[in-house]
């Protein structure tokens, strides 16, 4: 018994050490970025080492407020991320409810088709997508940035499984309480699926906010850049950059909304990422 406990505690300690090590590895660049954002650009021309020693400045952040395109990109990212999140939730919930609760010819075949889409890599469809949107003259629009990401098989799968786990008796009770099918969905089923909605919503939002590949292909005008594409576009001109400190301040600025979101929805995000969802 004693040996077993000691063994477990040793395992716990190793795990803790590994977690701490990983956290340091992940946090170090973020701390460095934050530190650099408060340093004058002239100092950083010589060295990017001493982030903890003065001089410090807020000039980089003032410059963002004054001159940069970051606000426009942030607005674009916000519109795209919220648009994708809301529409994905709507589509995945309705599709999931359909798969979970209604019986129609070809349902299982259709469900398998949705699942099969999980196996199609993004890179394989990017050229056809580009061609389609070019033909429709939709590039450099919010439509182009949002719509292709709405086909989200994982979301449909998640919602289907969640709805299946809700006892049908509850919906039957509501039917006997003279609720229409639609009312049952919106008043009973949807409120009960909030944990799954939160998981899917946060996942979709983070994914949309951090999305790079498709916005890079579709948004070619700087005014339609999302944050990720915009920030990257500045880094490619590294030689003529306005300064590393300014660049870092932009990165911090871009990360803030996600950080705030994380603080609010920490519990749901952890369960979403851990993949053990719905309790």
């Amino acid at each position, binding site marked *: 018994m004693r040996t077993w406990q000691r063994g477990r505690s040793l395992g716990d300690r190793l795990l803790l050490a590994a977690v701490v090590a990983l956290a340091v590895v992940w946090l170090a660049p973020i701390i460095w970025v934050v530190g650099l954002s408060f340093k004058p650009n002239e100092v950083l021309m010589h060295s990017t080492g001493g982030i903890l020693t003065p001089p410090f400045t807020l000039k980089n952040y003032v410059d963002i407020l004054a001159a940069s395109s970051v606000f426009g990109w942030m607005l674009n990212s916000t519109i795209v991320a919220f648009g994708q999140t809301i529409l994905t939730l709507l589509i995945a919930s309705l599709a999931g409810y359909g798969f979970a609760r209604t019986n129609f010819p070809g349902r299982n075949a259709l469900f398998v088709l949705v699942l099969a889409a999980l196996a199609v890599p993004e890179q394989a469809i990017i050229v056809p997508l580009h061609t389609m949107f070019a033909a429709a003259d939709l590039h450099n629009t919010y439509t182009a940035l949002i719509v292709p990401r709405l086909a989200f098989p994982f979301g449909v799968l998640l919602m289907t499984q969640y709805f299946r786990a809700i006892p049908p008796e*509850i919906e039957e009770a*509501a*039917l006997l*309480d*003279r*609720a229409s099918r639609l009312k049952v969905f919106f008043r009973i089923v949807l409120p009960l699926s909030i944990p799954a909605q939160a998981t899917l919503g946060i996942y979709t939002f983070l994914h949309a906010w951090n999305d790079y590949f498709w916005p890079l292909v579709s948004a070619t005008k700087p005014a339609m850049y999302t944050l990720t594409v915009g920030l990257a576009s500045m880094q490619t001109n590294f030689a003529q950059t306005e300064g590393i400190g300014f660049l870092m301040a932009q990165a911090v600025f871009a990360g803030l909304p996600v950080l705030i979101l994380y603080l609010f929805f920490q519990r749901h995000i952890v369960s979403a990422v851990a993949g053990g969802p719905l309790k």
Partner: protein
Amino acid sequence: MADLSLRHVSKRFGQLDVIRDLSLEIPSGEFAVFLGPSGCGKSTLLRMIAGLEGLGGGEIHLGGARIDTIAPGDRGVAMVFQHYALYPHMTVRQNMEFGLRNIATPQPEIDRKIADAAEMLEIGELLERKPAQLSGGQRQRVAIGRAIVKQPRAFLFDEPLSNLDAALRSRTRIELARLHHRVQSTMIFVTHDQVEAMTMANRIVVMNQGRIEQVGTPMEIYQRPRTRFVAGFIGAPAMNFLPVAAIREEAGRVVVTLPDGSTVTTAVPTTALRPGAALTLGVRAEHINPGAGTPARVEVIERLGERTLVYANLADGSTIVYDEPGDVVLAVGATVHLAIDGAATHLFDAEGMAVHG
């Protein structure tokens, strides 16, 4: 008040006949219990009345109006589900309100109905709680309350006691009987528990394989089972069934010879018999008297407190169970002598139908 009338209803799931051409009349205000083993179709039949399952054929009428063609919510029935099916995200009050709001009941009336039901079921202090904060028994009451406030023409109960512990179950049985007495509505109660059926029902509908085996008051079903299935299903312990080796007549009554050579004079007149039919004798444990008669060897002794059930082997190897007093002194392996009270026995033919006089 409503008369519930099932007319030639049937239901298939794929190739399986779940309900077979079933007809039944339930008078207004009756407490009817659908009783049968798992898979006999009793819950399906209840769900068909509620409108949660479609009909394969036939009609259902309630209060003189046909209801099988209208939506579940419009039928005037309320259902209490096995797992209560309360809305988890709503408080008890909201659970009870939901159905009333859907038919645009004025708020004062909603409040009054909920107050009445809460008082009747003693759940007044639970109204602002969510179902997750309630015990099983409390959820049960809320589920009943949700049904009561709708003042339905018929209450449908789908094994609502099966999730309660034994003590709570027997208490809830009494409360349901009391409730029925108070609201005087038609109630249909589905269960596989014969004690629930015997204690609560005005009439029991015994079902087997999608058919009605017998409809009758609890004592009719117990004392005059129409089929061998009913005889075996009702009563604890189950009725003893012994194959009949030979029959003869004595003063117009059938006298049967059992495989161990003993004879029993039944109350069945010989005129009720069809010639050449193979028969089975049925006798309940309490109608077997120890003391004199055919010898048997005690195999198992089950002490229940007020009575003792003794399982004994007859000479031909068949097992028979009979009653002894609770404090009887008896050992496994002992030899007892058993006399069957012939007047209280039942005879069943090869098709399992009772042969009555």
